């Protein structure tokens, strides 16, 4: 089943045929968390760096912000059976998008600030990033396949495998011994 994650949303899945996808990552950050043993994965699409920008909104929807969304993503993964020391994190997005209409510069540097907040939050959580596809000035699509753990970003016709499918996870998903 395909789960689509919209802007300021998060989804966690653990089904063998599940795939989580998010589109149109510009300055937003797409963050995947995956436990290859439990085969539990989640994807967060956060818009802005920190919840203190709008504390009310952060309580209402923590997934809107990097610093409140990440702990929520991790907690949801832990509840679904993932363990912190097995979690593999990938990140995409954080681009320097020009203002609507194509003119102007990236005055607010939201992409850059999102990445800085991501680093700070992960450092506090005690988790490192395994692979990333961030920066530049492109929009990205990010997918996480639960059965294999494969993470792919797509930008136009270019696909980048951030995290290759894990053979043991593939075997387990197909009911074979790894």
């Amino acid at each position, binding site marked *: 089943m395909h789960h689509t994650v919209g802007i300021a949303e998060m989804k966690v899945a653990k089904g063998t045929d599940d795939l989580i996808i998010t589109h149109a990552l510009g300055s937003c950050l797409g963050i995947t968390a995956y436990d290859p043993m439990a085969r539990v994965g989640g994807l967060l699409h956060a818009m802005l760096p920190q919840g203190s920008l709008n504390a009310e909104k952060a309580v209402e929807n923590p997934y809107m912000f990097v610093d409140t969304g990440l702990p929520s993503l991790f907690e949801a993964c832990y509840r679904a059976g993932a363990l912190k020391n097995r979690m593999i994190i990938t990140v995409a997005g954080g681009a320097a998008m020009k203002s609507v209409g194509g003119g102007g510069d990236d005055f607010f540097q939201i992409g850059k600030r999102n990445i800085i907040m991501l680093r700070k939050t992960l450092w506090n959580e*005690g*988790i*490192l990033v395994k692979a990333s596809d961030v920066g530049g000035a492109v929009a990205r699509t990010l997918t996480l396949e639960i059965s294999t753990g494969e993470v792919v970003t797509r930008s136009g016709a270019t696909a980048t495998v951030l995290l290759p499918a894990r053979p043991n996870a593939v075997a387990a998903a197909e009911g074979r011994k790894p």
Partner: protein
Amino acid sequence: MSLNILVVDDSRMMRTVLIRTLHISGLPVGEVHEATNGQEGLDQLAKNWIDLALVDINMPVMDGETMIDHMRANPLTKETPVVVISTESSPERIELLKKKSAGFVHKPFTPETVRETIERVTGVNHESGD
């Protein structure tokens, strides 16, 4: 196999950051020893079995480069892998330091860069070690 690691840097903050990086890296870390300059680093090497040394260059008393030279002259520490972690920006100096060590990490660094360099140098992977 867990790695006994020596962290040599005169900045307490930098040692703290490096040690936290080691602990959250997922690498199998055993004992972690600290030293604030090259001489203290050599003293720690004489007292403990060290599998890997993370060494700053610009330090008082004895700089990191002299410490590495002393390590290479000692049969017991000749083969111990060293990763230089430094603000050095001159390409010529970096090339020289790379020749003397197993890896070079430029400050400021991301914790991921430190992890990748240690994995490359030691052949120990964070996913294989518990």
